[in-house]
């Protein structure tokens, strides 16, 4: 099996040694299942009561890979246990029962069961349960990358806000910057309306929304001092354990959001943080976007193929990033190939480069050219994301670069590091649009200065990218390209919460991730972007490092392109803006041309 970040201790002979917890009040079945699982070479723990099972799971966090539980139990409803396990531990849960009625099975699935077995259970059914563990891992990776991508994206977006080019950044509001409070609220409503109407009620975690989320999480779990600590990842993950979805929901004060939405988002966020942290530890951010190097290239390539983004000259060809309209699927394949350093600028997943990412969206991956320019009114050949520029030269500090690495604590400030820079603090326009792109370009320098001065958030653009890349590597699926980005964004997000998810697209986190990714590329160290929020708040005005891909390009004054604007401009295709509770950006609505950048960050899905 791959060892892509699986923390399981048995990587070498997977699935042997899979740690299974069996919960059933029937002692006869417990004995049989134990024997069956042992025959499959799994490590079995049995439990006769649901409460005991929960205790065991809590005591030994990370000590089990999968839970198998009977539906009927005397002390607790099996479905409830299923929910609890999903929320608290995020482990795959298999339900079993002698009753195979469709309604029951449906209920199981609704509550989150990854499978439903009918008794009597055959051993061959148990042999394959490892697939659920594996699948979940893969999705985690993707989610995190998405998250990162989102963040990065957002960063970029914000930056491009000011350019009114009608580039629609991710359909979400570009409230990357605090200033956009009103916009945010407006967006929220709009989001709600749009999102909910577009797809089946999936919650789309817009940049703005995600920032609110992060803010709430931070408020609950972190103390303010931690915000400035770059070691955000650590802090955040630690703190996250304390926060509960209900509290977060209350703090966020988003009327249409449900506790379940928050809970599932929180799960992902946790994963993102832990992943980020892991990456931080292991990776040494090679300097932000090093991109241009292979990683980007590849990713660029991937994007390239689809998007018009010109990611590094060579890369673009891959088109692994399929931004256009489709979720940015950054083809991880390409990414993977590159060194993991490249923070995956998740940006690559940016929507297809179709068009030169005109969007200044902090396309994380935006191939440099477009990306890096934050201030570019999108006009610039964004499409040319020249990812080539992603080299490490890219000043990770691009504030606008969607500081991918925004330290976790940051709430997702629309700051998206990139976004902040929508206004040109950066030289030229390079506002974040490039952020994502490792385009180190000039913008970067600006960004750097920005970030640096702000709070020293090291705008680490790179990390995210790298992360992304590594994630990309992990993600085996080819089309995880996009995913990887999001994933990255996710991680980035964790870091840089503040990075405002610009992408209006799907989940804000994704955007952020995206943006972040770009940034991460820039910044090799993760610490980056703590910039995220704290930084941005101050920078807001200047930096507008928005990740908002498209928005970035709006006129300088317009930091965050409100989603409504985006919609108005027809940039954002409504349908894409669907609520995606998986923090996925739906690129569909992005007009490929518009959002090359955005797409990148948006990826997802």
């Amino acid at each position, binding site marked *: 099996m791959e060892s892509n970040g699986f923390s399981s201790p048995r990587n070498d002979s997977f699935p042997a040694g899979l740690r299974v917890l069996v919960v059933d*009040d*029937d*002692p*006869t*079945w417990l*004995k*049989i299942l134990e*024997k*069956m699982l042992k*025959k499959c070479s799994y490590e079995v723990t049995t439990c006769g009561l649901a409460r005991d099972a929960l205790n065991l799971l809590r005591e030994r966090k990370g000590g089990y890979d999968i839970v198998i539980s*009977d539906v*009927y139990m005397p002390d607790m409803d099996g479905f409830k246990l299923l929910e609890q396990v999903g929320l608290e531990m995020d482990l795959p849960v298999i339900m079993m*029962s*002698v*009753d195979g009625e469709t309604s029951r099975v449906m209920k199981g699935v609704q509550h989150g069961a990854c499978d439903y077995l009918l*008794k*009597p259970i*055959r*051993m061959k059914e148990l042999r394959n349960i490892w697939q659920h563990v594996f699948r979940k891992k893969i999705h985690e990776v993707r989610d995190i990358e998405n998250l990162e991508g989102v963040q990065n994206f957002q960063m970029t977006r914000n930056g491009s806000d000011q350019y009114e080019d009608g580039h629609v950044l991710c359909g979400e509001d570009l409230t990357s910057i605090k200033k956009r409070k009103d916009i945010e609220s407006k967006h929220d409503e709009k989001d709600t309306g749009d999102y909910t109407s577009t797809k089946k009620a999936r919650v789309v975690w817009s940049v703005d929304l995600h920032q609110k989320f992060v803010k709430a999480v931070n408020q609950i779990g972190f103390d303010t001092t931690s915000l400035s600590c770059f070691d955000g990842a650590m802090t955040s993950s630690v703190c996250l354990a304390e926060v509960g979805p209900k509290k977060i929901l209350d703090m966020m004060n988003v009327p249409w959001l449900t506790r379940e939405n928050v809970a599932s988002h929180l799960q992902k966020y946790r994963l993102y943080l832990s992943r980020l942290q892991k990456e931080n530890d292991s990776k040494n951010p090679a300097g932000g976007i090093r991109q241009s190097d292979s990683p980007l290239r590849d990713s660029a390539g991937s994007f390239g193929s689809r998007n018009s983004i010109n990611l590094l000259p060579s890369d673009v060809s891959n088109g692994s990033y399929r931004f256009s309209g489709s979720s940015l699927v950054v083809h991880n394949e390409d990414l993977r190939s590159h060194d993991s350093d490249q923070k995956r600028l998740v940006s690559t997943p940016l929507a297809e480069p179709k068009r030169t990412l005109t969007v200044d969206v902090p396309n994380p991956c935006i191939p440099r050219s477009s990306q890096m320019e934050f201030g570019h009114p999108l006009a610039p050949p964004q499409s040319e994301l020249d990812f080539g520029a992603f080299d490490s030269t890219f000043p990770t500090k691009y504030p606008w670069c969607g500081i991918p690495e925004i330290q976790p604590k940051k709430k997702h400030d629309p700051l998206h590091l990139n976004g902040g820079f929508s206004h040109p603090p950066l030289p030229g326009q390079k506002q974040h649009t490039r952020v994502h792109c490792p385009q180190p370009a000039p913008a970067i320098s600006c960004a750097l200065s920005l970030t640096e001065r702000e709070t020293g958030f090291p705008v680490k653009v790179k990390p995210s990218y790298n992360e992304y890349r590594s994630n990309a590597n992990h993600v085996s699926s080819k089309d995880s390209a996009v995913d990887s980005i999001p994933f990255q964004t996710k991680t980035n997000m964790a870091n840089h919460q503040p990075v405002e998810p610009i992408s209006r697209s799907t989940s804000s986190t994704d955007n952020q991730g995206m943006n972040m990714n770009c940034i991460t590329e820039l910044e090799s160290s993760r610490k980056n972007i703590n910039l995220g929020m704290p930084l941005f708040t101050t920078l807001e005005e200047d930096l507008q490092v928005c990740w908002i891909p498209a928005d970035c390009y709006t006129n300088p004054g317009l930091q965050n392109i409100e989603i409504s604007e985006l919609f108005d401009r027809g940039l954002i295709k409504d349908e894409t803006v669907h609520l995606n509770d998986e923090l996925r950006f739906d690129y569909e609505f992005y007009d490929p041309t518009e959002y090359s950048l955005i797409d990148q960050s948006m990826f997802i899905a």
Partner: protein
Amino acid sequence: MDRKQSQLQVACARRSLFDQGYLDDQFIQLEHLQDEANPNFVEEVVRLFYSDSVRMIQNIEQAMMINKPDIDFSKLDDCMHQFKGSSSSIGARKVIKECSKFREYCYAGNIEGCIKTFQLLKQEHATLKRKLETYFQLVKEAGLAEST
């Protein structure tokens, strides 16, 4: 009795349990699980089932003892559901059939049907127990014969 004969007896007894519909495929699954680490696995499981089923039967009887108008059929159904699940663990085919019938009566709110079915169920339950005990005895004897 020599080994071959003992083995033959075991085989016949086993065959008839299946042929007469007392056991289903699940029993074979249990036999497959039996190995050197658990040489008497099947017998252990069967014993466990029977000792646990006493408790379950009591639950059902209690749930049925209530005055007619107050009978909680859903609770009764739950109890039987549990019992059915347990019976399925050893492949007690006839017992399971009665369990299903019982649940249908529960669903229909027919307490008389439930009571009647439950009587049949207990009979099948007891019959199977006897047969399995005989069977395991034969297995043991065959094992002893083998070692001699």
